[in-house]
């Protein structure tokens, strides 16, 4: 009898932990760090954490969108690099204004998104492999475009030509608090509404849930898969633009480091609140978890080069909790 009565309770506990484990972990971590090092909980440090996760979150939201159609976009890091190069070069080399510069960056990355969809939807290359090749191609394109070097204000081009372009002051503000945090929250909110409250979001989930059923229900599945990869590239581009504003220059492979934390954030977010599917709020919480962990560990003087061990471990745990229950 006792054993019988226990099973549902154990199951409830397991369910509760999978659904709210991310939130619980964040709370536990915050309390732990706050007790250990009181300055951790100071408003300025909390703001620092939010600022530090903004770029990762925006890129991770892009990955989340590609995950909704049961796809995957590995090229987001390279796309961010490309956007960084495009926007900075537009300011410094070609002396464009704010809007044209940003539109050029977004437009260039839109092309990458369309190419991704072409490879995946039309040529039927598995998503991981298609975006893996785009990762290489786009990285190469960005490096070639910048001539294998960095770009910043006042720095001559590789052929020795002087440059006179300046970064727009509004552009500079994008990458600093509070705007960087506002942009992140707006992106999360918009994508959340898009996925949960609109027809298109519903269709994305349906396509990801059962492609054949979606197709035979009359949903234009190719169009929605294309949409997912295009949106993913656009958000990666936005992340790249913010990154450019933050570092004020274009650097070789600047966006590459964002791929893994973004993937981790998206996957950690899967199970938040029992969603069991990629979702924007979950992704934000995933990014918060990673940010808190990183910030706290750095304050505890864990060397920065060891952080990846912890971050990778968190990703492994998140993936385990997603896939282990699927059996």
């Amino acid at each position, binding site marked *: 009898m006792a054993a019988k009565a226990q099973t549902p309770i154990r199951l409830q506990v397991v369910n509760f932990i999978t659904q709210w484990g991310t939130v619980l972990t964040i709370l536990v971590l915050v309390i732990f760090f706050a007790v250990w090092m009181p300055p951790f909980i100071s408003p300025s440090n909390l703001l620092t954490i939010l600022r530090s996760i903004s770029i990762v979150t925006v890129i991770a939201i892009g990955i989340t969108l590609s995950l909704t159609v049961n796809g995957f976009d590995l090229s987001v890091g390279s796309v961010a690099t490309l956007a960084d190069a495009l926007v900075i070069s537009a300011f410094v080399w070609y002396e464009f204004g704010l809007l044209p510069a940003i539109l050029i960056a977004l437009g260039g990355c839109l092309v990458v998104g369309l190419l991704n969809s072409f490879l995946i939807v039309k040529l039927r290359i598995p998503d991981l492999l298609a975006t893996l090749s785009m990762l290489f191609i786009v990285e190469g394109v960005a490096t070639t475009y910048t001539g294998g070097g960095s770009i910043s204000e006042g720095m001559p081009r590789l052929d020795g030509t002087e440059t006179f372009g300046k970064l727009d002051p509004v552009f500079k503000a994008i990458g600093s608090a509070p705007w960087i945090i506002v942009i992140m929250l707006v992106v999360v909110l918009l994508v959340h*509404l898009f996925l949960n*409250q609109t*027809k*298109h979001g519903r269709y994305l989930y349906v396509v990801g849930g059962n492609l054949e059923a979606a197709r*035979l229900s*009359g*949903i234009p599945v190719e169009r929605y898969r294309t949409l997912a990869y295009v949106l993913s590239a656009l958000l990666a581009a936005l992340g790249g633009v913010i990154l450019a504003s933050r570092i004020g220059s274009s650097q070789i492979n600047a966006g590459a480091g964002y791929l893994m934390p973004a993937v981790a954030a998206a996957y950690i977010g899967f199970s938040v609140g029992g969603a069991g599917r990629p979702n924007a709020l979950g992704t934000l919480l995933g990014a918060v978890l990673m940010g808190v962990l990183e910030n706290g560990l750095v304050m505890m003087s864990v060397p920065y080069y060891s952080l990846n061990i912890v971050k990778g471990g968190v990703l492994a745990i998140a993936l385990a909790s997603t896939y282990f229950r699927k059996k």
Partner: protein
Amino acid sequence: MPGPLFLSAHGSRVVCDLFFAQGWAPSRSLTVNRFVLRRCIIAAQAHHILEMKNIAIEFPGVKALQGVDFTVHTGKIQALIGANGAGKSTLMKILAGAYSHYTGSIRMDGQEVDIHTPRASKAQGIEIVFQEVDSALVPSLSVAENIMLDVMVNKMGGRQWINWAELHRSAQAVLERMGVQLETRLLAQELSLAQKQMILIARALCEEAQFLVLDEPTAPLSIAETRELFRLIKELAANHGVGVVFISHRLPEIFEICEELTILRDGQVVTCQPTAGLTSLQVVEWMLGHRFSETYPKSQVPIGGPLLEIRDLTAREGQVRQVSLRVNAGEIVGLAGLVGAGKTELCKAIFGALPVKHGEIRLRGAPIQVRTPHQAVRSGLALVPEERRKEGILVEEPLFVNLSLSNLAIFAGFLGFLRKAAEKLAARRIVAELAIKTPSEQQKVAYLSGGNQQKVVVGKWLNTDADVYIFDEPTKGVDIGAKHEIFVLIGKLAAAGKGILYASCELAEIMGITDRTYVMYDRTIVKELVTADTTESEILFYSTGGK
């Protein structure tokens, strides 16, 4: 090749043992050959009889087989036929050792043998080539490797190295004995279905098969390929002493190559007779028998003008050939045919889910373009697909999401934002209308019964205002009560002036609810019948290739 020696002995044992002698131990080949040959002649001359006696098997709730006797002789071709669900596949799976909980005995030459595992079955020289050839092949390996797969896995002994030249020579030799021209270095994935079958038969020969079961081997083949397969089967039986069990729905084929046929119906043997002197009609009568008649709620509806007209529809890869049909308003049109006749493919081709080579589709007299299901739905078609869980519903989603799959746009307002209250209200209405048994519209569809899931698949089309509903085997895996409700629902749709195309391999259903019926055979429509003027036997006669 010791050609003359070879030809002097018959029986597949010869073929195989010689390969091992030659292929795997070249240095000792001569002595081994002689030894093997002597053994083989003895083996080949012996006539073997495989008997299944009083076989019965039950699955939860179903007596699949009862008191079945079945006999095969080496060197003969035995047909096994029966309508869908008669128990043919179950019987052959028992022979293959796939089930261990049957009762009855299996005897080889009068000696009882224990066949409860696939291994034991193989040890008796029984090989089965199932319909899904792809599941038994490794697509990325060569023809030779696929033929010699069992040998490489089981007969290598302690050797670690593969002798590729010998491997290809051995495979080539089997193919030559079969009279099949095939390059052994090709990859299995580059082959046609017919060639893949040949590989499996070759593999069976390597396994010293004395009894070879072919489960509907001709269903996917062209006429020329079928002829080639028949030549091979006859060759195996006549010159290699293999006993062949041939399962097919196509009666003309059975009359062509089988000496004897066994007919199963509802898990029992109806008769076992030499084919000579029988007619297709007689066989059809035996297959059908007299069943309990179910009652069908057929409502009489005045039939209007043509809704859907199809002319000369041919699918790109030949899954459907030159089909023409017409569905009128208020009419329920049956699409009869046995499994593999091409009904599902035709339904999908009409719906744009299968690439079409040529053909014209008209709706209310106007030609429509249907290249994707999206276009089909916009034009006014609806499909209830055969594979419910794979193609019709999202089991992980709640009911209301499933019910609005095809018509979500009507609940979407500004910028595509959803009015979820309206969506759920509409879902509740459909749940009530179709009597879907569920606590609420929030329930995950995975928790519903098969019949209720099927109602969900139908229900998602109700708000689309489709003109023509295509049903593909809608009663598969559905209990009697839910079946009845689905028939009533179809009747209501017809009464509302919709056109219905109803594909089913259950002849009783076709007879019960349709006004007119097309019969499909070999991927095309072979006959149009008015249901009131026909019989189940007549439909089955045309379904099995009668003319």
